[in-house]
């Protein structure tokens, strides 16, 4: 039943529905025609269902090995495990565009389903803008990258998938990352709708914030998963390469982080309104250009354009319309929005403004570092590259003040604050940071690493202090404190947890700058010493796998003679594609990772030697753990009552929920 033709038809249907969804409610909203506006939710849900059918058809074709579909023939094979047949659907260009469209459809349907307490005109316009964006991407999918194209004659077996992609981490990384990217389409649609309406107020800030926070949580998890994947699959011992694809995810994360903070100011003080609208537009624009320009390779090499001119021109045209159109609308309408009041520099809103300025400076730095090499090669024909040294030297000095102010910010009251009382409350956190600094001077080398470690502990200690102050911990009986903690708004607990998560990540990053490694070529039975551990190569054996043969080493790690772990790093040779991959062995005790990589085998068969690379990575798991804690803090604040209960200011107060899962 789920044939590729049905999928193709459903995709075309979704495209038409999206176009109608993009036009009719807009007309309805401008004519104040309730019937036309009421069409919007139905159309959005219909579009999502059509996309769902289309996506399921592609999965069905992949699972049933329908190699008459070109996309499946090129990326799948009979011998591939079932899980990777399914996840392989979005492991290639065409399938990932379809997934992108599906998630956009889900966002539209979510606004339709959960946005019942929005004013009908605003809801119609938001859904319409999402429909317009969806039309563009579904047209792109249909015309230039059709996932359902057939080939004749159909091959007996597919060409298989890059063995590197055959990994559970990578299988689930794209959907989460895409949900983060696409999720920012909702704040974008709210911003465009507000510009059309010519009205941004506190209620708008309250409506847009949960969507931005939800997208931010997904993006945070997605980036962390990508970094973790490159750490344990690529086997180079590092976690972030600063290459354009990674930076493309970091840039919208930085502006998105600024957005979730500035939206608070809109909500509480009705200020920073125009700025927040601009941030919402910028975040989605960066998400779009990040995925489409960088991933398609157009920026990296001008020649990628020549390979598929239709695709490149369509992408550039689409980005031009979406980004250029929204910025033009912003330029045209923003002056009509009433500007909010200015406020005292020392206050909660002042701290949030500072957060925005610093995050945007960081974003500008990362953007410059990413864009400068392609521009140099385009304009001056000079090939250069920027890497870790550049980004370390530019981002860390800007991030340090951000961490310092992160400690004060949440404790400052709104409107007008005094710095001294807050400093008095933070004396303990300051002592912790100073102690950390003293310890770091002995443990770590490098000024920036020491300062980062101290700043990280400062952020964690300040977040804990904030919660302790609010619950009056140790000043009233513990039971009373617990009672107060229960009464505390979830958003405040969420903020403290997310900020502590940042501290944990930064602490991991600072410690990882002290990672040690050693590369040796040794015969079996040799013991190597690294970071106080004795690593002994016990044996190397050949083991057959489903579609590869593996060379598996047995590596015993002892500390002071006591066995810590036995690791099995291996090297796999894939028969079909003449490829080898490295399978890293990692042992973690949460304080440090022992990381072993098996390299080539050399020498005669009677006395072979093996290349081993051994890493000692202190606090490595904390980097990703911190990101998960950040996302958890975001999710917790989403469950706050104040975020869920709609907006009493403009709509009739209803208890309907706008929570997003």
């Amino acid at each position, binding site marked *: 039943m789920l044939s590729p033709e049905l999928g193709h038809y459903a995709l075309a249907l979704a495209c038409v529905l999206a176009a109608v969804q993009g036009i009719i409610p807009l007309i309805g909203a401008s004519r104040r025609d309730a019937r036309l506006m009421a069409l919007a939710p139905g159309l959005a849900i219909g579009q999502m269902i059509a996309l769902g059918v289309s996506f399921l058809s592609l999965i069905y074709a992949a699972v049933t090995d329908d190699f008459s579909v070109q996309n499946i023939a090129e990326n799948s094979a009979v011998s591939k495990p079932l899980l990777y047949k399914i996840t392989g659907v979005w492991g290639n260009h065409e399938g990932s565009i379809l997934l992108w469209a599906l998630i956009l459809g889900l966002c539209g349907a979510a606004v339709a389903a959960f946005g019942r307490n929005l004013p009908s005109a605003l809801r119609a316009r938001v859904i319409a803008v999402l429909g317009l964006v969806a039309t563009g991407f579904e047209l792109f999918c249909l015309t230039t990258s059709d996932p359902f194209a057939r080939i004749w004659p159909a091959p007996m077996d597919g060409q298989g998938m890059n063995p590197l992609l055959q990994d559970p981490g990578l299988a689930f990384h794209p959907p989460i990352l895409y949900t983060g990217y696409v999720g920012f389409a909702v704040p974008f649609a709210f911003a465009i709708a507000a510009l059309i309406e010519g009205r941004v107020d506190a209620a708008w800030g309250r409506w847009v914030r949960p969507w931005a926070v939800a997208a931010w949580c997904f993006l945070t998890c997605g980036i962390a998963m990508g970094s973790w994947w490159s750490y344990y699959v690529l086997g180079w011992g590092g976690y972030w390469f600063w290459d354009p694809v990674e930076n493309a995810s970091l840039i919208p994360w930085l502006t998105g982080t600024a957005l979730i903070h500035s939206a608070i100011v809109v909500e509480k003080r009705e200020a920073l309104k125009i700025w927040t609208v601009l941030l919402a537009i910028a975040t989605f624009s960066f998400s779009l250009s990040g995925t489409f320009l960088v991933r398609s390779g157009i920026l990296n090499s001008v020649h990628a354009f020549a390979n598929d001119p239709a695709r490149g021109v369509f992408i550039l045209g689409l980005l031009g319309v979406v980004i250029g159109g929204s910025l033009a609308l912003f330029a045209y309408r923003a002056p009509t929005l009433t500007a909010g009041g200015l406020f005292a520099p020392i206050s909660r809103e002042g701290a949030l403004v500072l957060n925005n300025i610093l995050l945007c400076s960081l974003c500008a*730095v990362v953007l410059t570092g990413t864009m400068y090499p392609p521009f140099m090669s385009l304009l001056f024909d000079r090939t250069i590259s920027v890497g870790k040294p550049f980004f370390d030297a530019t981002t860390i000095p800007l991030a340090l003040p951000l961490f310092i102010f992160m400690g004060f910010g949440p404790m400052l009251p709104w409107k007008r604050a005094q710095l001294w009382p807050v400093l008095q409350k933070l004396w303990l956190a300051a002592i912790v940071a100073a102690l950390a600094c003293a310890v770091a001077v002995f443990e770590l080398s490098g000024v920036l690493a020491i300062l980062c470690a101290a700043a990280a502990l400062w952020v964690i200690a300040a977040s804990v202090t904030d919660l302790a102050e609010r619950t009056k911990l140790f000043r009233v009986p513990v039971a009373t404190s617990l009672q107060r903690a229960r009464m505390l708004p979830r958003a405040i607990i969420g903020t403290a947890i997310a900020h502590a998560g940042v501290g944990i990540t930064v602490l991991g990053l600072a410690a990882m700058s002290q990672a040690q490694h050693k590369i040796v070529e040794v015969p079996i039975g040799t013991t190597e010493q690294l970071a106080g551990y004795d690593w002994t190569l016990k044996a190397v054996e050949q083991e057959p796998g489903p579609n590869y043969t593996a060379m598996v080493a047995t590596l015993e790690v002892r500390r002071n003679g006591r066995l810590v772990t036995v690791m099995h790093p291996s090297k796999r040779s894939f028969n079909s594609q003449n490829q080898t991959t490295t399978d890293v062995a990692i042992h973690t005790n949460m304080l440090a990772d022992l990381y072993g990589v098996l390299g080539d085998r050399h020498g005669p068969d009677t006395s072979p030697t093996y290349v081993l690379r051994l890493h000692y990575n202190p606090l490595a798991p904390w980097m990703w753990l911190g990101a998960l804690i950040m996302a958890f803090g975001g999710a917790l604040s989403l469950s706050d009552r104040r975020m869920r209960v709609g907006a009493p200011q403009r709509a009739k107060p209803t208890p309907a929920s706008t929570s997003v899962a």
Partner: protein
Amino acid sequence: MTRKTRRLWLVLACVACLGTAAALILRAFSSDIVFFVTPSQVEASPPPADRTVKLGGMVVAGSVKREKHGETPVATFAVTDGQAAVTVQYEGILPDLFREGQSVVAIGTVKPPHGFVASEVLAKHDETYMPKEVAEALKKSGKWDPRFGPPPSAASWNTMTVQDAGKSLSAPAPAN
């Protein structure tokens, strides 16, 4: 505090942050940018010994030697762009995709007695893909015209003159 002084604070904060960012970028651009060089450029004007550069070209077939200094594996190989070859010394594991006669990018510094000392070797390619910089360098040196098929074997480049290359490349042309 008047409206004017509040605005002044905001502007000052913006200028301070963006100014710092610009200063940091400019400082890092002057010291931390990695230039791409070809073997012939290294031969003609070697970069200073403290400057990290990216050396790109093809691994000369038969030039890869693996030695052990103590327990540390050291690989030496020659990288050519057709005009000149530079010997690269690398301590560590060569990447899975490293092959003789195929393109490679080495990141490191030029140290006269050893040639080029690499801290990192990248071979991000399969049989058909060649890093853009390497392909450009080959085309500029006249050793390879992508219209006439895959690049000639890297071992032959240093002896092959541009005229020879033209002959061998133009041979299949009448077929078109």
